[in-house]
């Protein structure tokens, strides 16, 4: 199974795919790149959302590839306004529905879902998101994290990981690429005291699907941060998009967990963490990193993972051995 892309930590009932809903809410014909991990995430998140829902979406890759006049790939009622205000638009929708139901003009409030990329969430969209979370609107916010401003040409965001090449954090004589660590958006969401926060990845489809369902059903604000592999921006082979997402989890770079009313819980627990280089090597955006930086990333990842495990009260898995000079793994 390993050879064809399945790790031991994958709790994957092979035939469960057949049980998943068949109706496509993010239709074929969208103009996403070949192998787009974000489009795959949108496809499944919109299926998990299901009927009786409306979507407010930020400017970004998924908005551009799906809503060029006169065509739309969205089956849901869908509104795009601007880049940084998705959470505010969603707040307005939710509020409007509430008064209409109160006045008897509407039977039921549809589920309100806000969607934005990492740019529209962790940077320019942070204020609107913080306001919406603080006000406690009954909505779900999904962040498609492809770790840069991809739609405008791969510029860095505060969600770009340490050492990654982007066009505005290029490696050079004086630079190793992105010099700061990825902003911990999940911790920010948790700090607002909302009932449900989770990370997810379409490589772990059922984990993602049921987390979205849980978020939608949870009264009050819910936030889900989804790792979206971008072969174009990450300079990885198009067929590796699902595999890379899996490697992100298996190396501890992007752990899958949920936080319910402040309580942390790992939802996918690799019994043994792979060396981060397994994740970094297939991506051209890390190609320039020397052993020194890779070792730093390895140490940092393990330290962050341990902190997370402590919060989850989960046992430590087997960790890879760190050496100053990284050996070839695998």
């Amino acid at each position, binding site marked *: 199974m390993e050879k064809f892309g399945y790790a031991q930590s994958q709790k994957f009932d092979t035939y469960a795919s057949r049980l998943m809903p068949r109706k496509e809410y993010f239709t074929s014909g969208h103009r996403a790149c070949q192998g787009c991990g974000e489009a795959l995430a949108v496809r499944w998140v919109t299926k998990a959302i299901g*009927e*009786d*829902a*409306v979507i*407010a979406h930020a400017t970004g890759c998924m*908005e*551009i590839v799906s*809503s*060029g*006049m*006169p065509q*739309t790939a*969205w*089956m*849901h*009622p*869908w*509104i*795009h*306004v*601007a880049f*940084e*205000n998705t*959470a*505010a*638009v*969603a*707040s*307005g*929708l*939710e*509020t*409007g*529905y*509430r*008064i*209409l139901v*109160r*006045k008897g*003009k*509407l039977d039921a409030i*549809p589920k309100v879902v806000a969607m934005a990329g990492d740019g529209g969430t962790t940077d320019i969209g942070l*204020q*609107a998101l*913080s*306001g919406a979370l*603080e*006000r406690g609107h009954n909505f779900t916010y999904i962040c498609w994290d492809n770790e840069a401003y991809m739609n405008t040409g791969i510029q860095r965001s505060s969600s770009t990981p340490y050492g990654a090449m982007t066009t505005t954090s290029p490696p050079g004589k004086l630079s190793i690429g992105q010099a700061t660590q990825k902003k911990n958006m999940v911790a920010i969401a948790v700090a607002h005291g909302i009932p449900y926060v989770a990370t997810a990845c379409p490589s772990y489809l059922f984990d993602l699907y049921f987390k979205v369902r849980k978020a939608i059903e949870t009264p009050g604000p819910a936030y889900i941060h989804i790792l979206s592999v971008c072969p174009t921006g990450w300079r990885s082979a198009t067929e590796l998009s699902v595999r890379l997402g899996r490697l992100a989890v298996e190396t501890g770079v992007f752990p899958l967990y949920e936080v319910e009313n402040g309580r942390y819980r790992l939802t996918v627990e690799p019994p043994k963490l792979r060396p981060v280089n397994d994740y970094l090597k297939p991506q051209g955006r890390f190609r320039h990193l020397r052993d020194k930086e890779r070792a730093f990333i390895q140490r940092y990842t393990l330290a962050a993972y341990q902190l997370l495990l402590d919060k989850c009260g989960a046992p430590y898995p087997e960790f890879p051995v760190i050496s100053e000079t990284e050996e070839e793994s695998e």
Partner: protein
Amino acid sequence: MAHRVGMEVSIAVSHAVQMARAEAIAAYPITPQTHIVEHLSSMVANGELEAEFLNVESEHSAMSACIGMSASGARTYTATSSQGLALMYEILFIASAMRFPIVMTVANRALSGPLNIWNDHGDIMAARDIGWIQIFVENGQESYDHTIMAFKIAENHKVLLPTIINMDGFILTHVVEAQEFLEQKQVDKFLPPYHPRFTMDPKRPMTMGAFAMPEMYTEVKYAHQVALTNSYEHILKVWKEYGDLSGRYYHPVERYKTEGAKVLLLIMGSLGEVAEVAVDELREAGEPVGLLKPRLWRPFPFEDLRAAVNGAELVIVCDRALSLGGAAGPVLAEMRSALYPLAEKPAVLGYTVGLGGRDIQPSTFKDIIRLAREELAQGPSQEFHIFGVRG
């Protein structure tokens, strides 16, 4: 029976919003709009207004939330001033392009820098191009009346454009005036419940806010221009209907003592009442002076203004805002442009007054008329003048 009240104009505006049965309000406080949103908030809290009041975390989010509220199908209102209007700037264009009938009160206040909380028209003049219907009011009664009418204008399916009511900050918002309120049942008959054209409805899914390639953008914007221009007749119909109801009739350009006038002052907003005092005194002294008070700013009332200046030799535009580095104050520039096609037209000169809330007396207008006459005698310049600069 309509009843007369004496109250702070901000409170009267919030009563107008209440009587118009606004359903969803998203607002962020900024001087001098604060009393409007505070009172609305209080009415909602006491169940006097059946609405949701959303305390958003910035004006940008206020207008964004208003779009969401309008898209859900609720009758939507907000208010702001100055920096708040400037902050919501990018969303203003989007609200009108997406044709959401949001009503907004702008309590006109100077734009920073430097910071200044007092009244001029800098905020709204910087937002001329946003594609909204824009109306100016002069006093408390008009503030009340036009707020109610704004909803009817905006929500007309032949219009479907967001509408701004401009009222002078502090001079109107914080001043107690006598106003005549309509009865609720009169307002209900005049303004039926909002029936949106499109909403975010799972039973009828639509995609709103799709992007337009160069092949389509021009056509979409053309449709917007046509809608804004054509709203003129619908605005006049609403004003006529309200006039029949209340006895107060409003016009795109209000005229004051313009019969036989050779010199016309032109000013928008509450300072029109101060100018009237000057005109009265000058007329008493035998001077053929009159006053024009444009009320409808967008769509621009070209024909009304051309007709109103007919017979005058000199029009003196008193701007309340600047267009730095440009040919003239905003209203002056648009007036000159409007009169350009006429074979016979008066001279048009400009004196910008009352920036940052500087006090204006009737004597100011008399001084301006004197200066304008001197300038005209020397041969008019293309420049505009800021009146009363020391130094």
